[in-house]
């Protein structure tokens, strides 16, 4: 029996999807009866002394494996004193890092930690193939990362047609109306402004009386800082509100801003809806938990062919997913607007209602807790080579990030080669 120290924050993350990811990952570990799990709280509000004591406690528990399930706070603050303590005790457990989308925001922390990890067995577990492509760029060839999708809990998100009617009644929809939903932060990199414009164009070009768009979530001020776009609180909301108010009244009536809702309410939302839309070109889009949950609920999706979202493409069921092409343009990440509009038009005529059970099954087979548990089990059966640090490309990027205020754009605010070298992994032809 292997003893696993699971490190995560017992406090909820401000990123709702990350809260769920951590607990579902833990469930994936718990499914394996051959593992003895020890849970340790590592959260943002702990003081240095508490962290030092935590490091001692973990080391004294003599784990075979130390698994970092969370992304915040960065593990370096805990693991550096922990490694010192482990060395003092003459112990050498294996480290498993479940990598989140914010890896590329924390080069300095990872660089510092990487040096300390040299000589230990280390695994980097990522959530999607494109994230693997990106992370492997920073690793030595003998240390490829492993893909383990962030799992969805099938007990929470599954095909439940009985919820549909009530939800649609709540929305005030008729039986043959088509409901599109977006769930997530209303964020510049999630292209809510493009969604509003395209939906309006769809209504005007088709004159369809059926389509409605329900937008769940609250605006943020993340901007697109890598590309030199910073936002102050309220700025993105005012941008999308101005777009919304500029639309004809008949279009405004079909766009419904629902605000933030508890995760539990989304179960019914996914059942009541006909299509999920997610146009994210976010730098941190290593996966897409809301897309995974919607698909596990049987909801077909129109999503961008970007980063982790591309992993949700369902090829075995016709028109279950539409992937909107993306590319890294001169100054911005670009979405193929015409293709998106075409997908909207096709989706308006194809509700895919009869295929929802199949969509749910196909997706759950791939993205739920059981397959994730199997991947972790297989991983634990392997023997990785001792970690020899991050590679030269990582060092180069870390230097750029350390020494340049805007490491990813030129003085003319064009996207530079550093950004392309990293994020080319997120587009189809990488």
């Amino acid at each position, binding site marked *: 029996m292997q003893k696993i120290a699971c490190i995560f924050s017992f406090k909820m993350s401000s990123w709702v999807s990350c809260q769920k990811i951590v607990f579902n990952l833990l469930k994936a570990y718990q499914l394996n009866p051959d593992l003895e799990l020890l849970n340790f709280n590592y959260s*943002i*509000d702990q003081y240095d002394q508490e962290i030092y004591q935590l490091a001692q406690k973990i080391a004294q528990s003599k784990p075979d494996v130390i698994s970092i399930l969370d992304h915040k706070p960065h593990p370096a603050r805990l693991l550096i004193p922990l490694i010192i303590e482990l060395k003092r005790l003459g112990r050498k457990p294996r480290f498993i890092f479940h990598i989140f989308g914010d890896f590329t925001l924390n080069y300095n922390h990872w660089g510092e930690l990487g040096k300390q990890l040299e000589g230990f067995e280390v695994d980097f577990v990522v959530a999607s193939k494109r994230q693997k492509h990106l992370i492997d760029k920073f690793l030595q060839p003998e240390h490829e990362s492993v893909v383990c999708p962030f799992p969805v809990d099938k007990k929470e998100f599954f095909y439940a047609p009985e919820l549909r009617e009530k939800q649609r009644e709540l929305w005030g929809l008729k039986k043959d109306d088509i409901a599109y939903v977006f769930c997530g*932060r209303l964020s510049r990199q999630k292209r809510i402004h493009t969604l509003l414009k395209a939906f309006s164009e769809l209504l005007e070009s088709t004159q369809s009386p059926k389509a409605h768009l329900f937008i769940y979530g609250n*605006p943020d001020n993340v901007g697109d800082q890598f590309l030199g776009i910073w936002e102050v609180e*309220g*700025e993105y*909301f005012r941008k999308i509100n101005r777009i919304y108010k500029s639309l004809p009244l008949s279009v405004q009536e079909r766009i419904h801003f629902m*605000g*933030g809702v508890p995760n539990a309410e989304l179960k019914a939302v996914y059942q009541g809806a006909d299509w999920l839309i997610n146009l994210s070109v976010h730098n941190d889009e290593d996966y897409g938990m809301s897309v995974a949950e919607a698909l596990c609920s049987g909801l077909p999706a129109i999503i961008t062919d970007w980063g982790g979202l591309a992993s949700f493409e369902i090829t075995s069921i016709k028109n279950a997913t539409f992937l909107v092409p993306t590319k890294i343009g001169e100054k911005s990440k670009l979405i193929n607007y015409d293709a998106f509009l075409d997908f909207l038009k096709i989706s308006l005529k194809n509700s895919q209602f009869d295929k929802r059970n199949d969509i749910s099954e196909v997706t759950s087979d791939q993205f739920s807790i059981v397959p994730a548990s199997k991947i972790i089990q297989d991983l634990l059966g392997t023997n990785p080579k001792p970690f020899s640090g991050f590679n030269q490309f990582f060092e180069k990027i870390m230097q750029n990030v350390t020494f340049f205020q805007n490491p990813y754009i030129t003085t003319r605010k064009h996207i530079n080669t550093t950004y392309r070298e990293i994020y080319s992994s997120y587009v189809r032809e990488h």
Partner: protein
Amino acid sequence: MLENIKAQFEKPRTLTQSKYYTLVRRDHWPKFYWDLYPLAQEYYHELNPYFLFNLYHPDLFEFSKVITVRDGYLNFASFLVDHAKTIKNFTSAPLLIHPDLAPLVPPFISDLFATWQIVQKNQIALKDAKKIIIFGLVSNEYLGDLSKDDFLEKIKLKLAPLKEIPLTTKIELFLPLRKEIFKVHQTEQVNVYLLMGLIKDILPGRTFEFTKTQILEEMNFRDHYFFDLGIDKFLVSDNYMHYFMQARGATVNNNSLLSPPTGSLFSFDLSLYHEFHVTPLPQVESIFSELFFYKKMKNQEKNLHNDLHFQSLVMSLLRT
């Protein structure tokens, strides 16, 4: 005035827009601004929400066609006694103020002013909240001096509605400790102990969670009630914490209106949950002459916000 507001709204150019971030020298701002965290964080809307004390150069007054004033009683009073007679020389921008600041406006420049009001159509009652966040900047300037009976009574009264909340309601405390922001010499304060004692007396046997500024990373406060213990607008009239909470769905005990005010001249959405309305300056008796008289007697050129007696005068005139 309305033309200016409409023109500004149509072609917004404001000091908090990220594209103009580097245009403002924040190192020129008064040091006390940083002590006001998190009440004074910057945010954006088209009518240029800003602190007058941060407009360190006359050109900045003309940067936008409108300024939504965020200053509290003290700084607004200090600004007016310094600039009331000359303000029209360096700006024609309408100044939108909170109605509570209206008594400070000198009648001879009242045409420069209008007021702003917040409307939040869907508010919840305290008893219906799933979680109540009790907030207060623990300083005399925000809560009053709790070692004095009259202020203690005020906070007791303020806390009294919490007696009625159900046992199932979660309670979180966000009580950042601050020195007296505008005092030159600091004295030892026991406010935090007294305040905790009061909260425990009002809510006996209850479990509290404490939060710190990580609360500012959270996204959704629907079904939450933000219970601000601030006794007035001495420090700020436009509190960022209120904006932040309302923009994420919380109800705040800041007298936000449930429906648009009569006489609303102009309005827009501040968030999915709350609106900003411009209304005419209310007809109230001005106390400006008393403040100006003090300045003349004192014969002090500027920075009256640092003057202990001026602070006391503003408090006594506006703190009822």
